[in-house]
Structure formats: structure tokens, C-alpha cells
């Protein structure tokens, strides 16, 4: 019983990470058809924001020492700020470009951010102890799991509920959903394009920061490549979930987390190292049978 609960919690917390990442990508894709390859580097940037302004190997001098109720808003603001900045400086000029061009531009932007971090902090991973109190184990349903996992899952559920309410109940959320449905029509009806898009970028950046906080406290290291893996899984989740469908992205994120965790358990020990390869393979198989994704959003199908 305990070990099964352990697997369930592992799956849920890994899935939470993927779901939060996928949500950040799907939000932006929904409003402007941009596949944002820079998302993973925004995550890495947020982790390194904790080290700033020191560039030493182990030191946390300023931001990382803040108490948690200041630390978390600080990181969220960094993420949102960087994301909005990238919209204003780069993506705004691509509004009328085709999706492929935007995708490559975001790929390039991601590289610029990553090598900016490399320039400041070098490519060696740095150890950070972020919110160390969270790694203590707690007992839940007979399984001993780190407190962090429980918090990760709780935070994700909270974020999902909050975001749903935000999108359903507020005027801004309504505008955002309208823009995702049919951008031109929404503009004609008086939705301000810049505001909605900047809002989407800010939310997406804050989600990236949330992923960064979880990753940073889970692994205890800061590495300029640390966003890449989550981002890739998040992409896959958005594709499987049906591009642009927020619910689909979240469900697919949890699904991927579950598949990865279950594979970790059932694969023979020799094959465990190839877990990710199996997951990618499974994804390609899903895409054969449902190329439009599990829940395909309206308006993303190629029209003739």
C-alpha cells in the first residue's frame, strides 16, 4: 500500500511540474499561435535570479535569503517580467509572421537567454539550498514522502483552480479566452490585443517561475540547462493535449508524469535509463493515432 501511494505521489508531483510548464506554453500558443521555445530558458533564468547579484559558486547573497513570503513573489515577478520583456522586445514584431517563423525566433531568443546566463554564471551547476525545510518527509496514507511533493501537488491544484476562476470569472479572462478562440474577431469586438497578449505572457512567465521554484528546491542545484527537459515534456504535453487547449495541456502533463513514473517502476533495471526515450516513443505513437491531440482546441485545425 505504502509503495503504491509512493508511486502515485511521484506521478502526481512529476505530472504537476509538466502540467505547469505545459500551461505556460499553451497560454501563449492560445492567444498568438506562438510555440515558445524560450520558456525553458525563462525557467532557468528564474532559478538564477535567486543567486543574483552574486555570481560565485555557492553563495546566495540577496534574493535567495529572503523569507519565503517575499521570495516567492520576487521570483514570480522576475519570471513575469522577463516574459513580458521578451514579448515587447521580440515577439511583438512577429505578430503577423507565420507560426514557423515565430517558433524559430523563440528558439533563438531561448539561446540568447541561456548564453546570457552562461556568460554570467558559467556552465557549471551551482548548489543552492532553497527552502530546505521542504525536504523533510511527512507521512501521508502510509507513505513517507517529502513535504515538497505534497506542496507541489497542492500548489499546482491551487494554480489550476485559480487560473480557471480567473479565465471564467474576470473580464480579463473572458477577453483572453475570446482572443484564443478567434483573435481577429475579438479585436473587432473591442478586446485590446496588446493587453491580452501581455497578460498571457505575464501569466506564462509566472508559471515558469513556479516551475523554477519547484525544480530549484527539488534538485538543490542551479544549472543553465535545467529548464530544457521540463520544457520538452511540456511541449509534448501541449501537442498531445491538442495545441491551444489549456485543459488538454494540463491533463496531458499529468498523463506524461504518470507514464514516466510508471515506466520507472515497471521497466527492467537495465532499461530504466532509457525511460525518457520510451516516453518520447509513446508520444510519437499517440500522435499517429490522434495527430490533432487528445482534446483538440477549436480553431487550431488547418482550414482549407
Amino acid at each position: 500500500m505504502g509503495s503504491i501511494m509512493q508511486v502515485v505521489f511521484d506521478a502526481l508531483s512529476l505530472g504537476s511540474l509538466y502540467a505547469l510548464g505545459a500551461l505556460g506554453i499553451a497560454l501563449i500558443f492560445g492567444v498568438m499561435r506562438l510555440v515558445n521555445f524560450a520558456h525553458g530558458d525563462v525557467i532557468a533564468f528564474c532559478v538564477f535570479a535567486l543567486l543574483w547579484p552574486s555570481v560565485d559558486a555557492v553563495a546566495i547573497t540577496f534574493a535567495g535569503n529572503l523569507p519565503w513570503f517575499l521570495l516567492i513573489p520576487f521570483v514570480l515577478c522576475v519570471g513575469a517580467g522577463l516574459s513580458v520583456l521578451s514579448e515587447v522586445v521580440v515577439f511583438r514584431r512577429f505578430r503577423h509572421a507565420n507560426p514557423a517563423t515565430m517558433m524559430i525566433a523563440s528558439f533563438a531568443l531561448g539561446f540568447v537567454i541561456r548564453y546570457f546566463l552562461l556568460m554570467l554564471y558559467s556552465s557549471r551547476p551551482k548548489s543552492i539550498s532553497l527552502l530546505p525545510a521542504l525536504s523533510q518527509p511527512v507521512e501521508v496514507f502510509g507513505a513517507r514522502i517529502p513535504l515538497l511533493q505534497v506542496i507541489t501537488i497542492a500548489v499546482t491544484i491551487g494554480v489550476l483552480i485559480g487560473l480557471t476562476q480567473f479565465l471564467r470569472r474576470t473580464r480579463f479572462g473572458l477577453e483572453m479566452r475570446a482572443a484564443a478562440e478567434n483573435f481577429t474577431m475579438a479585436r473587432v469586438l473591442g478586446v485590446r490585443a496588446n493587453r491580452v497578449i501581455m497578460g498571457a505572457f505575464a501569466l506564462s512567465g509566472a508559471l515558469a517561475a513556479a516551475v523554477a521554484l519547484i525544480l530549484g528546491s527539488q534538485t538543490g542545484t542551479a544549472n543553465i540547462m535545467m529548464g530544457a527537459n521540463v520544457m520538452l515534456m511540456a511541449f509534448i504535453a501541449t501537442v498531445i493535449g491538442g495545441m491551444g487547449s489549456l485543459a488538454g495541456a494540463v491533463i496531458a502533463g499529468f498523463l506524461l508524469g504518470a507514464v514516466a513514473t510508471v515506466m520507472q517502476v515497471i521497466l527492467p533495471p537495465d532499461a530504466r535509463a532509457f525511460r525518457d526515450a520510451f516516453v518520447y516513443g509513446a508520444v510519437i505513437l499517440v500522435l499517429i493515432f490522434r495527430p490533432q491531440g487528445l482534446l483538440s482546441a477549436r480553431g487550431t485545425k488547418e482550414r482549407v
Partner: protein
Amino acid sequence: MARPSVARRTVMTPILLSALLVAFALVAWAAGSKPFNQTVIDIFLQVIFVVGLYTFVGNSGVISFGHIAFACLGGYVAAWTTIKPMMKGISMPGLPDWLMQLEIPFWGAALAGGAFAAFWALLFGAVLMRLSGIAASIATFAMLAMVNSIYSNWESVTAATSSVVGIPIVRTLWPYLAAAIIAVFAAWAFAISRHGLALRAARDEPTAAAASGVNIPRARLIAFVISGGIMGAGGALYAHSIGLVTPDTFYLGLTFTTLSMLVVGGMGSLSGAVLGVLILSSLIQALRWLEAGVQVGTTTFALPGGVQEIALGAVMILILMFRPAGIMGNSELSGPRRKTKPGQPGHDN
């Protein structure tokens, strides 16, 4: 009056591009400096990669982030087939016996690498080519990650993430020149073949092409296999140029460089692919040189590491902003003949 065949009308493009490459090689040969020689070899390898990428991306219009995976497959084929059996036994003990004993010359390895990569391109492509647009691009990314994850973990066959050394190094630049020219001609020949023309039609007008009987997934698959083969051969030669392979050599960094070269040059144009390599390679070299430090008077002026990639990214974003079709757009370098017919459409294939 009968129009000259497509081949006759367009053959000037690969000839001019090859002449450009030969000119580079001659300059390097005349300069006779070792580092410069290596730089020019790198440029030729990039030409092979970018031309391979162009063969698929340019003709089909589907962006692929996964082609470097084929270079990885080819690079490891070179490691499996050319390292001395004794050394293979130490670093990669899991190889089957026949492969363990095998020791072939480097051009054989390039052919084998190309064939191996083309085979896997056929398998992956049969699945991936059913997708289109962004889903296809992301699926190619998943393919890259999958290949990288397998090669980084398969201890007994690929030595996991540690580098496999002992691949015979080929230092003269002529084989690389020859391979780059072959790649250029192969890409040209494919682009004007009936499959290439059908694929370009499908890129520009998918509905009309499908209505005219073009089987789009099949046309894409053919391009995918050919470009995979070119990438594989390029990967094998890359292994021979530096003498070692690691999975991370063939991952995001190289994907980014090759893709940016293609984008800057112009995705829809073979000339763009080659010129993109030449222009961005020159920029990268200049920045590397600045990163290494330049003596200005008594102080050494050096850029911090990473500036090279940042500049590359910035150039790429600027090009995309102001000239989304790249430097060459959809046009090709060709002889003076074209200019006398202003009424013709911009590109003639």
C-alpha cells in the same frame, strides 16, 4: 520554341555554389595554416549539415528540429566501424562481434553512416510525416531528444555520455570539400526531381497539390530519408574531423547553429543554405577570435564566453524580423540568363 529542361535551366546554381566552396578550399590550401585549415573543414561540414536540413525543410516547408539526431546516428556509425578493434573492446564492449572486428576506411564509414541514418529516417519518417505544421516540428524535437537520451545512456554500445575517442582523424580538407559538393548536387538533383517538385508544390499550395495527385506524406518521406542520409554522412565525417564523438556534440547547440544558418540564408533556397553557412561561420569565427582576446595597444580586449551564441541569436532574430525569408528569399544564384527575362516568376523550380 521548346523550353530547355529544368536541369539545364537550374544547373548553374550547384555549379556556382561548388565553385564558391572550391575557392574557399583553395584559399585555405594556399594559406597553409593549420587552424585555418580546421576552420574551413568545419565550414564544409556545416555546409553538409545545412544542405541536408534544407533538403527537407526547404522543400517541404516543415521545420525540423530533429535532423541533428541523424548526424548523431552517423557519427556513432563512424565510431563503431573505424576505431581499432582493441580500443573498441575497452570503450564499447557491448558491440556485436562482427562490428567489433570491423575496420573500414573513413569514406566507407561516411557511406555507412549515411545509409544507417537514412534507414532510421525511413522508420521515423513513416510515423512523423503523417503530422503537419507545428505538431510535426515538435515531434521531430521529440525524436532528437529520444535519440540523445538513448545514446547518452546505452553504456555498452555508445559509452554513454563520455566521449568515444580513437576515431582516425582526417586532416586534409579535400574529402570534406568533395562531400560538401556532393551534398550540394544531391540537394539540387532532389529539388528538381519529380518528387522534389511535387513536394514544393505541396509546400506552397497543399490543397491544390493534393488535388493534383501529390501524395504529401509520401513526398515528405522521400525528402526526409534523403536529407537524413546526407546528415548521417555529415555526422560520420564530423566524427573524423575531430576524432571523437559524444551524444551532446549532436544536440541542441548544433541544432541551433545549423537552423540559424539555414534561416539567415533563406529556408527556401539552396544558395541560401550555402551562403548562410559562409556568412554565419565568418561571424562566428570573428566572435571566437574576439572571445580569445585581441591586443589593443597594451591591454587585451576580450569578450566574455557566450557572446558568440548571443550574437548569433540576435542576428537570427533580426533577420527574421526584417527579412523573414532570409537573405536569398526563394531565389537561387544562377547565371546571368535569368535577368534577361523579368517577366518570369521569382523562382523557376
